[in-house]
């Protein structure tokens, strides 16, 4: 043991290292309460952000777009298309001889792509087993809480035309 050092069982580096882990990790009541209050402030900021977004919201204009021709897909068949913009994938299903429905393909839970299950006659999300009704897109089961946005289709002679989307719906 060097003469300049007090007797100690600890190694030299531990004696000379001035940072004590236990002390550094210690959080006193004031610090913890301050942290909680700042978390509350962050959540309030999130609420204000939602408020500002709702004030700035403008209803989108939906273009008219020919999606398919009548009879193009068989009963129980599907067709994928993009509407109203290229980034938005949609799915159209022919549910009966003269009945077509179309929805956004983005699951309202975590945006996985839903597919049509002919066996179960519903739209299913493979990620977390969310199921949607083929009739109106409402949630049948699983973690999604909002229905699938429906594409409004019009029949113009032999053509099926997308004219808008139902963005505000009750679940």
């Amino acid at each position, binding site marked *: 043991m060097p003469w300049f050092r007090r007797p100690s069982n600890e190694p030299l580096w531990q004696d000379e290292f001035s940072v004590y882990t236990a002390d550094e990790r210690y959080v006193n009541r004031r610090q913890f*309460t301050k942290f*909680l209050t700042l978390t*509350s402030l962050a959540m309030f900021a*999130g609420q204000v952000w*939602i408020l500002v*977004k709702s004030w700035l919201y403008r209803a989108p204009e939906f273009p008219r777009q020919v999606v398919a021709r009548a009879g193009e897909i068989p009963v129980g068949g599907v067709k994928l298309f993009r509407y109203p913009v290229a980034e938005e994938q949609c799915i159209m299903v022919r549910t009966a001889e003269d009945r077509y429905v179309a929805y956004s393909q983005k699951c309202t839970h975590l945006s996985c792509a839903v597919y049509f299950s002919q066996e179960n006659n519903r739209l299913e999300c493979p990620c977390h087993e969310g199921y949607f009704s083929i009739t109106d897109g409402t949630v049948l089961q699983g973690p999604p809480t*909002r229905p699938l946005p429906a594409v409004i289709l019009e029949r113009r002679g032999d053509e099926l035309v997308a004219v808008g989307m139902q963005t505000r719906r009750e679940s």
Partner: protein
Amino acid sequence: MRDPQAPIQRRGLTAIDGSMALIVLLLLVQMYLLSATLEAYLSGHHDAALPGAILSGLIFAASAALYVFVERLDREARKG
């Protein structure tokens, strides 16, 4: 010899712990409020945004008031 201030210090610490528990409860409510408001906004119901923001502001104000209370009590408890 027993410190005559000790009971006061203990009451102060109890009040601090109670305040902190209350802040945690308020945070849970605020968290639920945020998720409910976001869900409503994504569903297209924008009318829930303003009441949600007002309520959240009130909860934050209550949390801030409790923090000030805790800080004052903590300072007094340490002094005593």
